[in-house]
């Protein structure tokens, strides 16, 4: 049932997860029955879709099943896919430049979610598209966070403005904007320190970075993205809600979907907050960042082929 996200990369090629193998028959030509419905329920829950979405999909399949007892697996899959597509309608983010350069994108999120790596990947991607980019190393808190982003900058030949651990993160952001502006760069990507959404004092630091950027450009940072670890469960919805409340998010990046997690929590986040999903992280290398496509996501989840 569940094709793997590698499919994004490999053009819907190979790999089938354990669950996919187990439920393969379910979405094949076989006729649905009570036990396959339970397997389906399990598969949906284990994708982290959560209670609401799972029950909605199940309810529609059950309704169809009541009407037509010869409902086939593939038809059930098509119903599930349709429900998911409907739920995700409008969820694709489209990165547009701001009215005046540099367009500022801030990466925020809890510890270890993938902010720094995503900042580097995105910079590289934009550079491939012929855009000019500056990175701002505003995680001045975590040990070696500055070195981490600097290493990426050297590796990918990217421009970076950085200070040292313990420096004032807002000043780094301020200087980086100035540097990007004076050099006429298209984008400024701001990496920030990881922080749990439950710590209100650390949220204040983000607000300060924003205030300082707004001294340069009242609309900056135009993009405020939450970087969410796709292997997390329902708590990522809580993370998104709180970051959104205190910082006003404009979008999401969901990372680590090259693992076996199917990132179903993103559906919950979208349903509750309507924050568009811009990119998915599918690995540790620079090129492992893919624009989010509802179609591809739904197909991968339900193991549908073109």
């Amino acid at each position, binding site marked *: 049932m569940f094709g793997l996200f590698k499919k994004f990369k490999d053009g819907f090629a190979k790999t089938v997860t*354990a669950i996919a193998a187990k439920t393969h028959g379910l979405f094949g030509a076989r006729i649905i029955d009570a036990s396959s419905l339970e397997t389906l*329920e*399990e598969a949906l*829950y*284990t*994708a*982290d879709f*959560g*209670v609401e979405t799972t029950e909605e999909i199940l309810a529609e399949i059950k309704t169809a099943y009541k009407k037509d007892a010869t409902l086939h697996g593939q038809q059930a899959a098509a119903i599930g896919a349709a429900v998911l597509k409907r739920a995700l309608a409008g969820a694709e983010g489209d990165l547009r430049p701001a009215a005046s350069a540099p367009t500022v994108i801030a990466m925020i999120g*809890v*510890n*270890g*979610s*993938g902010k720094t790596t995503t900042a580097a990947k995105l910079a590289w991607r934009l550079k491939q598209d012929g855009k000019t980019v500056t990175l701002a190393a505003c995680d001045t*808190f*975590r*040990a*070696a*966070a500055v*070195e*981490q*982003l*600097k*290493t*990426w900058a050297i*590796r990918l030949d990217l421009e970076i403005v950085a200070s040292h*651990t313990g420096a004032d993160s807002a000043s780094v952001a301020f200087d980086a904007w100035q540097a990007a502006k004076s050099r006429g760069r298209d984008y400024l990507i701001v990496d920030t320190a990881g922080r*749990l*959404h*439950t*710590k*209100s004092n650390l949220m204040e630091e983000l607000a300060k970075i924003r205030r300082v950027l707004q001294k340069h450009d009242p609309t900056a940072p135009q993009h405020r993205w939450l970087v969410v*670890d796709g*292997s*997390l*469960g*329902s*708590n*990522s919805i*809580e*993370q998104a809600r709180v970051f959104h409340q205190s910082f006003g998010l404009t979008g999401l990046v969901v990372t*680590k979907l*090259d*693992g*076996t*997690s199917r990132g*179903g*929590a993103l559906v919950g986040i979208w349903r509750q907050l309507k924050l568009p999903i811009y990119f998915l992280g599918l690995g*540790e290398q620079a090129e492992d960042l893919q624009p989010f496509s509802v179609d591809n996501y739904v197909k991968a989840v339900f193991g549908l082929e073109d």
Partner: protein
Amino acid sequence: MFESLTEKLGSALRNFRGVGQLTDANMADALKEVRTALLAADVHFKVARDFVERVQTQCVGQQVLKGVAPGQQVVKIIHDELVRLLGEGENSLSTARPLKILMVGLHGSGKTTSSAKLGKLLKKRGYRPLVAACDVYRPAAIDQLEILAKQEELAFYSDRVSKDVPAIGAAALATAQATGCDCIIFDTAGRLQIDPELIAEVKKLHAVVQPDEVLLVADGALGQEAVNVAKAFHDALALTGLVLTKMDGDARGGAALSIKSIAQVPIKFIGTGEKTADFDTFYPERLASRILGMGDVVSLVEKAQETIDHKEAEKMAEKMRKADFDLEDFLAQMQQIKKLGSMQSIVGMMPGMSGVQLPDDSEKQMARTEAIIKSMTKQERRKPDILNGSRRKRIADGSGVKIVEVNQLLKQFQQMQQMMKMMKGGGSKKMMKQLEAMQSQRGKLRF
């Protein structure tokens, strides 16, 4: 979001108040609620199902106790079973010397930080730890560990040229032996459990250094895949324990139950913050309450300690502990609560109210609640039991609300009190002891 489990169980079981016995039939709805609560806490589907089945077997045939709502009785059975499951196994570290500890896990789970935290802890226990940087992939991972090691004055080994991880491990071991270190902590790179090359690499490292402890470091907010992650790491490396990180957040931590059930490894440590001191031993009671969304008196009290003046907080904790928290206190707290930050987070920590999602107009709601309580006499606030129909009507009129609102408030308050009573007795005694211990040392025992 989800109502408190107790509340939901309360309504699912209301019909047979006084019925006598818990049976399969009368518990069906209640058990569905339990399952939903576990799933919402990210417990794996199958683990949740098996757990519910086991609890069902335990409940069926039990007498419904007089004076205890059946919902609470069931919650207590569930809670105790969870505590048993979570606490199972030896959760202290091996006593081998030298003590070799291998830290493994997914990307960004907190291995490096936990390595330093563990080093600090073991140093306090009299070891001479060396931390070895075996993450040769993530940019600046070696620097990160080196900085932390320096900060905690731990011996440190790295090789910035080699990419041969097993060889680095062997060299670190030799260095430790040569320099009289009796504890070696190997920090490894984050890896997916399905990455054959990287799993082979860490297996080789394991074979070379022969660790006494293999700790899986897992994010407390991990979703359903936690079981597959744990299983694969366990199959490859024979895990000896689990470190659950980022538990200073508000994740319910159901993944811990999944991992525990699948890999049968004891939970050994809990990461509760970014500082190297934020590393605690594991208390099954607290995690059980948290998974069930039963509120967390400990956190509430702690948060209060940070914000409210200590005397007030202590008084409140004491009252909660003795379950004689009355509406008078409730009012006083409400006035303090505004200082504590988001209403939502506070309510989440109240016993029996965790998971209750406040509506957007909750601040207004709070003003109404305040008005209701203020319309009561002192005696009524102290003994809400005396609030009969005519008193309730007077209060409703006095505060300009409908009588149902007064009833609602009283019902909620009553549930909260019952919850406190339940935690006061029986299986949660230990939790209360911890609370007391925490009260005296004012330590950082969050979660």
